[in-house]
């Protein structure tokens, strides 16, 4: 194993250096990737905030669909109060998951219901198991996925609803699916969202687009949980600095008035 790792690492390194220096083409799939359409998200603009109802529904989609393969290691259940769940709701939500704890006084590990202070449970115990279960592919952690891809939320939304039959002449590799928003066009993740796949308790119709929209909202919140607060503070900071700038401009003119 260490030997293979070393060889792979050396190869990757040589490839990177050569690519960077323009001596060779870095190996990357040659499919044309399509720019995802621009959407109107609730959090856009200096005063935009998260649509908490959508984020809560999005959490449900994550829990019932995505979480069977994707971890969100950076999130704890307690963080969910950030999208409007009450502490009691978070406790109840967390209790639905089992986590490994211990060792106890006998030195044994044991399972217990999760507490709000626990991290989101991971669907796989390690990377190898994740790859084994997914035809060799590793489902990425989704904690900051909305910031880790170009075009962010627009991309995630387009990807989730962007599954199609492959165009003529595209040979899909075994276990792959065609999605023109994915780099190279072939993605290991199948289309997971189906009409009515989850049941929303707030009466929203769970169409595919609605679910994709909601889970993308949840992903954006998960990647940037303090955005609402940041913008709120930003408006005050900019307001203060703008007034301060005007004052300083006036003082400057006053001070310099005797020099002309």
């Amino acid at each position, binding site marked *: 194993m260490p030997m293979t790792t070393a060889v792979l690492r050396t190869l990757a390194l040589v490839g990177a250096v050569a690519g960077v220096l323009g001596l060779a083409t870095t190996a990357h799939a040659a499919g044309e990737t399509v720019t995802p359409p621009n959407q109107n998200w609730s959090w856009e603009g200096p005063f935009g905030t998260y649509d908490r109802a959508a984020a809560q529904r999005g959490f449900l989609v994550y829990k019932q669909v995505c979480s069977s393969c994707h971890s969100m290691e*950076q999130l704890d259940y307690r963080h969910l109060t950030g999208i409007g769940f009450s502490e009691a709701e978070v406790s109840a939500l967390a209790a639905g998951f089992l986590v490994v704890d211990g060792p106890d006084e006998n030195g044994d590990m044991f399972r217990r219901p999760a507490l709000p202070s626990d991290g989101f449970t991971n669907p796989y115990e390690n990377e190898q198991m994740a790859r084994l279960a997914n035809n060799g592919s590793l489902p990425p952690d989704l904690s900051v996925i909305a910031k880790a891809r170009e075009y962010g939320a627009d991309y995630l939304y387009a990807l989730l609803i962007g599954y199609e039959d492959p165009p003529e002449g595209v040979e899909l590799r075994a276990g792959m699916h065609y999605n023109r928003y994915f780099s190279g066009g072939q993605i290991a993740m199948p289309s997971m969202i189906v009409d009515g796949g989850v049941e929303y308790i707030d009466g929203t119709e769970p169409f595919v687009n609605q679910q994709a929209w909601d889970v993308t909202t949840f992903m954006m919140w998960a990647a940037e949980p303090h955005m609402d607060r940041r913008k709120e503070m930003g408006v005050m900071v900019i307001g203060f*600095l703008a007034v301060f*700038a005007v004052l300083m401009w006036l*003082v400057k003119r006053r001070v310099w008035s005797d020099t002309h």
Partner: protein
Amino acid sequence: MAHASPPPAFKNPMVRWIDSRLPVFTLMQKEYGVFPMPRNANYFWNFGAIAMVMLMVMIVTGIFLSMHYTPHVDHAFNSVERIMRDVNYGWLMRYVHMNGASFFFIAVYIHIFRGLYYGSYKAPRELLWMLGVVILLLMMATAFMGYVLPWGQMSFWGVTVITNLFSAIPMVGDSVVTWLWGGFAVENATLNRFFSLHYLLPFVIVGVVFLHVAALHVTGSNNPTGIDPKGPQDTLPFHPYFTIKDTFGLVVFLLIYCGFVFFAPNFMGHPDNYIPAQPLVTPAHIVPEWYFLPFYAMLRAITFDFLFIEAKLGGVIVMFASVFILFLLPWLDTSRVRSARFRPIYKWFFWVLFVNVLILGQVGALAADDPFEMFGISFGFISATTVGQICTFYYFFHFLVLLPLLGKFETPLPLPRSIHESVLPKGARGGGPLPAGAAAKPMGKA
């Protein structure tokens, strides 16, 4: 305003007591109170003070961040996410720091181009200029190492590519790389030492900034006319005239900076750095932070062997030379006139160089095989690499050929007799007719 000439008589007995034993108050009064500034220094003269403030912002936020950051390959990425999520106002500290690096460079680059335009590097300010270049180099090293710390994909592959460049050194290259890494790959030892140095270097910068300012206070500031102040009528005391002017400029700068911090904090970053470092997965396109792009383009421009110098080594030499050449600038520029305002030909070449550097920046952002494109316009007939090679050639041509020759062949415009004559409107102070060019309004007053 009473501009008391030294020695200042302090009214407060405590201040008097301290000052007679350690004359810090006298020093401040001399260097920042009555210190004579050319009265025509425009708003481009703000950027030194702005850069100083940015340095302080970086140090303060950096110290707070380091209290929560863990320099270990298994924990670095997660600890940054802890800062973003769970540390009180950690997201603020991090975004201020992250964007602060960009804005520190913006301030410093404007400061440098100001110096290039108005000839601030010429005698007697050569050492002052060279200390500035040392600061630039230290800043680059610090920023580079700081970018490694979040241990994202770009962090990892950036450090991998750049440290590997040292393997191009003949004979000892590989040993040097192993020594830099502290092992046989970019690993925990590398991250640890980069964190250590990232914490150390800013304080070295503070030291060199002190020398930079000390040297400045010997020669005094240059000004848009490039001619020396001839007496008190040409200068104004630093306080209150330039303290207030700097404050106003600083607040405007902070407005733009805060716009990014609060409303587009990831605009200047790369999405790949939110993917934890994966030593076995090379990103499709490795790019450094924007402030390194022109240098990166010059590094990649050398795709051919030159005599016995291999392409890789050639690129490294060219990249380092592009900064080190600035040390020689005071002697490469043979013109005795400082300000481009009175150098009709140099003025144009200054802007050509400026655009050239912008194009180099764009080339640095493109993949080597891409057709060149800028402002969304694609120039399909020419590759990014070719444009990079032309611009790299021009960059050195400017410094090594144009500047030495221009000084010999260019006829400068007549210089104003004094600063105050060039500033004050005609007839305000009597005096003879103004020489051509001197009547131009200083830019900052527009």
